């Protein structure tokens, strides 16, 4: 590991649902600037749970989460986290809840307290980044699968995050969209954690890869 401060660090984090076996058990993990970490594991191994813990959608049963040099415990602590750590959901239909692309991408910046003019510029910039500029007025549910994924990513980028958490960003895409997402992720400067089943994809996109097995981070793979 490098000696600069990690953007986020999980120390001894465990999580379980009420009355169930632990899903995550004593997880230790750090993400440094410039890193792109791949996270693999079977269905139900807790990959998504891990991402949700980082942005405070779930609360760990034990352990500590430090993000951007501060310990984060309560809902209020995570308000700042969510403005600087963007989470891409598995299903774009969960992420894109507004009627048009424009409104959806503007939702984050408006919540950050930006005025309409600034939000408008952020929308434009984010859509240009993912190569979807000019589609501001498209109806969200008329987009193709690949377009939805790209717009979802734009909704995150419009908030100018330092970290991206991506839950199966390539899953279910046709070859051209797949390639587009792949090269886009390689071109972005943010540190990332990318969850996927696709070893080949992670191999080309990430700088190191981890596997979740029985609630533990089971050593880095090549």
């Amino acid at each position: 590991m490098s000696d600069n401060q990690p953007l986020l660090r999980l120390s001894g984090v465990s999580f379980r649902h009420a009355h169930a076996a632990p899903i995550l058990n004593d997880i230790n993990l750090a993400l440094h600037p410039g890193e792109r970490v791949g996270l693999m594991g079977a269905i139900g191994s807790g990959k998504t749970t891990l991402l949700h813990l980082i942005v405070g959608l779930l609360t760990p049963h034990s352990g500590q989460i430090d993000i951007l040099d501060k310990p984060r415990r309560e809902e209020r602590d995570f308000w700042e986290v969510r403005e600087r750590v963007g989470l891409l959901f598995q299903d774009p239909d969960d992420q894109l809840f507004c009627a048009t692309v424009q409104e959806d991408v503007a939702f984050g910046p408006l919540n950050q307290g930006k005025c309409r003019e600034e939000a408008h510029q952020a929308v434009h910039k984010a859509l240009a980044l993912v190569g979807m500029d000019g589609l501001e007025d498209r109806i969200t549910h008329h987009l193709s699968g690949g377009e939805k994924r790209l717009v979802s990513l734009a909704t995150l980028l419009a908030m100018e995050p330092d970290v991206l958490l991506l839950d199966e960003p390539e899953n279910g895409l046709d070859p051209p969209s797949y390639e587009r997402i792949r090269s886009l992720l390689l071109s972005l400067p943010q540190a990332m954690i990318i969850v996927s089943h696709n070893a080949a994809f992670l191999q080309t996109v990430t700088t190191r890869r981890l596997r979740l097995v029985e609630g533990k981070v089971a050593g880095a793979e090549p």
Partner: protein
Amino acid sequence: MSCTTHFAGHTVIHRLDPRPRIVATLLFAVFIALDNPYPVLATGLGVGIVLAMLARLPARPLARRLLHINLFMALLFLTLPTTTPGEPAFSIFSLPFSRVGLHLAAMITLKANAIVLAFTALLGTVELSALGHALQHLRVPDRLIHLFLFTLRYLDVIHHAYEDLLRAMKARGFRPRMDLHTYRSYGSLMAMLLVRSLERAERVMDAMKCRGFKGRFLTYRPFDFHRRDAVFCLVATIVLCLCASLRWALPGGPQ
């Protein structure tokens, strides 16, 4: 396939700002729904037809809508004149058709067709989420608007989920019959989709939180008011005034 599509197009009507279209439709519909003499209703129907032509409404779907309405109207024409007592206008097979009944059925039919045509031409041509935002600009409560926009956004998603499950049921040999097994199966389908909708609602809420939602909904869509919209307002006002003066000037109107 989408079940939430409007009558898209590029006509003069489509290009108008939705806000004055909403106001004009409401005023027109309320006015026509009042007691009106025939010439006013005929004028109203004419206005509806002109609007439908200006909006170039596609013939088939429009015909289907009008048929739907007018089947009920046909029922009124059969039942009202034969059951309403009064001086008979004519009789078929010695069954008298009363003048009062015919008058009532004709009034309702004219009103319904005039309103439906104007409503479809002016509001059926607005993209639905834009309609929601236009209503927001017209001071409809924010929560009601967001309820509308969310319902609209997820209607197709849920509709697809239904179709996928129905297809899977069919693949397992399901054929709807009139028996308890069928009702129970449809009941399970409905309930399963409710459960999945609730879970999706939680994920949507999570996605909103992740993008900085802190309890207050902020969305915004601007509209532009052009000169053609001013012209539309002027024409709409003139038409409504003419109809109103016709109503009060004619014998049989309110004094």
